[in-house]
């Protein structure tokens, strides 16, 4: 009876249209199930027992990816209630924390996953360094990883401003002032004033959209945090994973 139902589903036009292969109860169809599926194709068709060993990679990169996914999901939940306006941002955060059902959970998940992502990126890179996995011919993927590290840190920093409390305000004020000491591009940096950079045209002004941390800075950081940087990270993640799979040094991982 169940077998008949299963066969009926598997043989149906709809199933074949979606999956384009038979029920994965044989090696061929199992292989098809992996590499004809956009969500699974990043995974190898077959995994060796040795690749499942934890002790070499400790799954640090995978945990980082998991945290990035958690951050994307919880971040979208937070965006439903958050307004990047100086008059509302802090109140929205308070509402999320104390009034909205599940708001505090989403905020805490977002916050701790963010801390965790920075931590696990660092651990992952330490592991890669200690096992020498950055060496030729995989230097390019190390560089992609460094770009992802920088993006992770900038994501943390831009997200820091959004609660619009004293901590956020001064942390970003200090960070933006550091940008103003950039050589050649900052008003306070070496050769900055000589090249004509003033508080109204240097890199800090470009970052904040003003001379102080205000509304322009808030909306700028919001757009960077919620749209630009996650997109950049996603693109670089795709390249990162593509290289790992195609280089194949790690075996069918």
């Amino acid at each position, binding site marked *: 009876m169940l077998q008949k139902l299963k066969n009926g589903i598997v043989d149906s036009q709809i199933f074949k249209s979606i999956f384009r292969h038979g029920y994965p109860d044989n090696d061929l169809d199992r292989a098809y199930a992996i590499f004809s599926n956009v969500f699974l194709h990043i995974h190898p068709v077959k995994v060796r027992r040795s690749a499942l060993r934890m002790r070499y990679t400790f799954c640090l990169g995978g945990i980082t990816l998991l945290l990035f996914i958690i951050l994307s999901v919880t971040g979208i939940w937070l965006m439903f209630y958050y307004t990047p306006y100086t008059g509302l941002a802090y109140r929205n955060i308070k509402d999320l924390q104390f009034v909205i059902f599940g708001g505090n959970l989403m905020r805490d998940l977002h916050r701790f996953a963010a801390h965790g992502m920075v931590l696990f990126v660092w651990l992952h890179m330490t592991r890669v360094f200690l096992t020498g996995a950055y060496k030729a011919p995989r230097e390019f993927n190390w560089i992609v990883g460094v770009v992802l590290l920088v993006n992770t840190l900038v994501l943390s920093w831009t997200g820091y401003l959004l609660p619009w409390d004293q901590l956020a305000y001064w942390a970003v004020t200090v960070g933006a002032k550091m940008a103003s000491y950039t050589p050649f591009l900052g008003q306070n940096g070496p050769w900055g004033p000589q090249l004509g950079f*003033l*508080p*109204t*045209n240097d890199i800090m*002004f*470009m970052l904040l*959209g*003003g*001379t*102080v941390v*205000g*509304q*322009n800075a808030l909306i700028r950081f919001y757009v960077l945090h919620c749209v630009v940087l996650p997109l950049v990270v996603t693109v670089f993640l795709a390249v990162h994973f593509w290289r790992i799979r195609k280089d194949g040094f790690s075996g069918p991982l």
Partner: protein
Amino acid sequence: MTNPAAGVGHPEETESGLNPSEKGRRKFLVAAGWSLVGATMAGSAYATYKFLFPPILYEPPTVFKIGHVSTYGLGIDERWKLKGRFWVVRNMRGIYNMISICRHLGCTPNWFPDQKRFRCPCHGSIYDAHGNVRGGPAPRTLWRGQITRDPLDGELIVNTVIRLDPDPVQTPQGLWVKEKVKEISPFYIGHAAPPGASCASNRLLC
């Protein structure tokens, strides 16, 4: 006519044997095409750069019209400290202003008329009436803001963003910048001393 690269009117030509004028034309078209692409990219880059710099800001003002010289007496005037974060200082030779931002970590120092010193409440930096460092951790002397005269009504205009910050020298008294170096246009306006004024109260004002 099997080779589509050959011109319709020149059936004898092949890809490798183009006549020189044809070669020159293609080279020119490639160069022109890439120049167009390059110009478009450069234009977009410039437009992006311009886009990121707002030409209008809704920020607290940084330029203040502070009235005539005659409304200021000799010495340190604190009336603009809260609104504009600067002091107006008038001495026997003229008038200037100093930004009320401690050069150590950016707190607001207080003026103590009895001691004739600015003292920063955060980490104890001490400045004299010229902004020279007399003690504490401050690494440089106080900033001086731009001060100009409105050509229409003669009132003074202070711009707190344009600042004078010469390198100080280490002396036994503290970090020093000669007044001559700081009393320059547009950070200083020469003006006769107020009537009946003497600098007995503070010799630094002479």
